[in-house]
Structures are given as structure tokens and as C-alpha cells.
């Protein structure tokens, strides 16, 4: 189903209990939806609803997406605006967004690029962030890898944590039983507050005042390089 062209970019609200959801962007002014009911809201946004089955949506570049699902695979392809996703289980793959608020109980998360704040709350499963602004990640179990980010906070219970900073920015990591690796850009000299009750601490950078790196884990090694 095609929704008539609106001023671009637009805002989509998607509610789908189960099934895979693919949202892709393009240089177009309208919204095209397959596999779900669509209605235009008075505020100009588009609401897409489905009980089950696969949904395929194409929308303008930069559109904001608010998506809620119970289970199934979510894939957001292309360049989106502010995105919020809530899901109970399943994998979530996101290519490029302006900002992100993602909450997933179980399943894997892969975010390639988030220009601004990247907020993730997950219970179990792997969390993989490519490039992002400030991160705010709360996990419970599962590997957390944030490769190129501008500081932030990571809290988790178990699972390896790996964070790479692109700039001298404050970073706080708190865990119970995790090995934690922090990689800084060359030349950055941080104030280091590293604490583990049973594990090795390996500091391979000079201390300084460029930013504060605070890492606490109960058991597990800490490495800052």
C-alpha cells in the first residue's frame, strides 16, 4: 500500500506483534508499506500495524521511526532520523540513524552508525555498535562491543566489554564479571580510575587529564590501551 506523499522526511509508528520488519529509506516523498495496515494520523505521521507476518516499509531518507514488536527480526536499512525500537526478542540490525533508543529483552543488536546519542537497554544477547556519538548501554549478559564512540556509560553484569573511543571523552564502565578492554585514540592521556577485585589491570597509556576513564568490575581483567 502506498501512502500519499507528505512533506519529507516523515515519522512512522510501527506496531507489529510478530514477524520480520524491514524499513528501508530512499530519495522519495511517500511511504510504501507491504504486509500491514496503514493509516495517516492527524499530525501527519504514518501508523503501521500488524498482528503477524512480514512487513516491508520504504520511506524518505531521514524519517523518524518508533517501532514496537514482540518477536522477530528488525532491520532498518538506509539513513533514518531519530529511532526508538522496543522488542522482546529477536535480532535488530540498524544501518544509520541520527539518534537511537533501543530496548530489547533478548537477541542480538547491531548498530552500524548512530550520529548522536545511542541509548541501548538489553537483558541478554550480543550488542555491537560501530560508530556512534555518546553511548548509554545497559546490558545484563552478553558481549558488548562499541568500536568507535564518543564516550558514555556501559553497565552490565557479565560478558566481555570492548569500547573504542574516537575522541578524548569521559567513559564509565561498570560490570560484575566481565573482562573490559578500552581503546583510546593515539595521544590521549586520560585520568584512569580502574578497579577490579579479582583480575589483572593493564594500563598501556600515559595518565593525564584529557578525559576520565572509570572502569569497575568485580571479577575480570581491565585493559586500557
Amino acid at each position, binding site marked *: 500500500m502506498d501512502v500519499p506523499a507528505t512533506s519529507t522526511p516523515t515519522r512512522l509508528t510501527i*506496531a507489529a506483534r510478530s514477524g520480520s520488519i524491514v524499513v528501508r529509506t530512499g530519495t522519495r516523498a511517500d511511504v510504501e508499506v507491504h504486509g500491514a495496515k496503514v493509516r495517516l494520523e492527524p499530525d501527519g505521521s504514518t501508523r503501521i500495524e500488524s498482528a503477524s507476518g512480514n512487513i516491508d516499509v520504504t520511506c524518505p531518507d531521514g524519517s523518524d521511526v518508533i517501532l514496537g514488536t514482540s518477536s522477530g527480526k528488525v532491520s532498518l536499512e538506509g539513513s533514518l532520523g531519530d529511532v526508538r525500537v522496543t522488542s522482546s526478542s529477536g535480532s535488530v540490525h540498524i544501518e544509520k540513524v541520527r539518534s537511537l533508543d533501543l530496548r530489547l529483552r533478548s537477541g542480538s543488536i547491531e548498530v552500524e552508525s548512530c550520529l548522536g546519542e545511542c541509548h541501548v537497554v538489553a537483558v541478554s544477547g550480543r550488542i555491537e555498535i560501530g560508530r556512534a556519538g555518546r553511548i548509554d548501554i545497559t546490558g545484563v549478559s552478553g558481549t558488548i562491543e562499541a568500536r568507535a564512540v564518543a564516550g558514555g556509560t556501559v553497565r552490565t553484569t557479565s560478558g566481555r566489554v570492548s569500547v573504542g573511543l574516537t575522541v578524548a571523552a569521559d567513559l564509565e564502565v561498570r560490570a560484575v564479571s566481565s573482562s573490559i578492554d578500552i581503546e583510546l585514540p593515539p595521544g590521549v592521556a586520560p585520568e584512569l580510575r580502574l578497579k577490579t577485585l579479582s583480575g589483572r589491570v593493564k594500563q598501556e597509556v600515559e595518565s593525564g587529564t584529557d578525559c576520565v576513564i572509570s572502569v569497575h568490575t568485580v571479577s575480570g581483567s581491565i585493559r586500557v590501551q
Partner: protein
Amino acid sequence: MTPSDGPGAVVFTDIVEFVRYNAERGDDAAVELLEQQVKMVRDLLPACARVVKELGDGLMIWVPDAPAALQTCLALQARVTESQLGDDPTFVRVGAHWGSPRRRGDDFVGNVVNLAARIVDLADAGEVLVSSALLDAAGDLTPLNAHAHELGPVFVKGVPDPVALYRVEPLVASAR
């Protein structure tokens, strides 16, 4: 049939990273942290409200007034941030829903309670997450100097239709 007290807000709180705090600081410090949380909440509760029960590192609270419930949730987060429970940065998550649960002795049961418990599970450290039912009952947030940020349609186990959830924040902190 068990009685209902009429509509009210069921609020759940939960101390974030309590397991880590307990492991690092030991049992005595953990007990002290729990006692600080209970005292802090009791000090903030309006006269009409009460702590229903303690649930491990969390609390279940009943507030039969929607604006007062939101105000209490926000005040709790502000107080935790100000005072810091314990001597380590500590955060609390809060989730709340509005409805008429059934009373069972001093306890409450029913779908309203179940949904409120699901909501707190979705909240992050320092957040207040609430249902649209509570927001609707509260009305205008201006007197609370607060702002509601839509999280979207959320599917909750055991509830057939998606539930609209909102993060409620003081206006000064609504940039996220």
C-alpha cells in the same frame, strides 16, 4: 471477589547494579543500601500513598493520585541523584501504571500490577517509565515541571494490544 481500592498508580522501583554493589561491598553494605532506599521512599511519599512491599532490591508502592505518583517518581530520582545511595554512584529505575488492582490483604494483585512490573523491567538507570494510562490520569504535566517523551508501542507478555509507554523527565533533563 476481592475488593479494589479504586484507581491508583502501582509504582515499582529497582536498584540498578545491586548485584555488583553487593559483590563489591558485602552483605552489610547491601542491607544498608536497601534500608536507605526504603527510608528515602517513605520520606518522599505523600500521605495518601504507601509502600506495599519490598521485593529484593526493589519496592512496590501504591499512590492513589496520578499527579502525586509522577511527582513522587521524579522526586525519588532527583533525591537518588542528589544524595547518592551508598558511597558509589547508584541508580534506581522506576516503572508505573494506573488502574484498579484487586486488594488482597495489604497487597495488590491483577493486571495493573503485572503491567507495572513489566514496565520497570524496560526502564533504564535513572529513568521513570510510565504507561499512557497514568499519563492520561495525571493530565497536564506543567505543574510538575515535567515532560513526557514517547517510547512507542510496546508489546508486553500477557497483554494483547501494544501499550504506549513514556519516559517522564524533569523539563531540564528532557534533551535525550
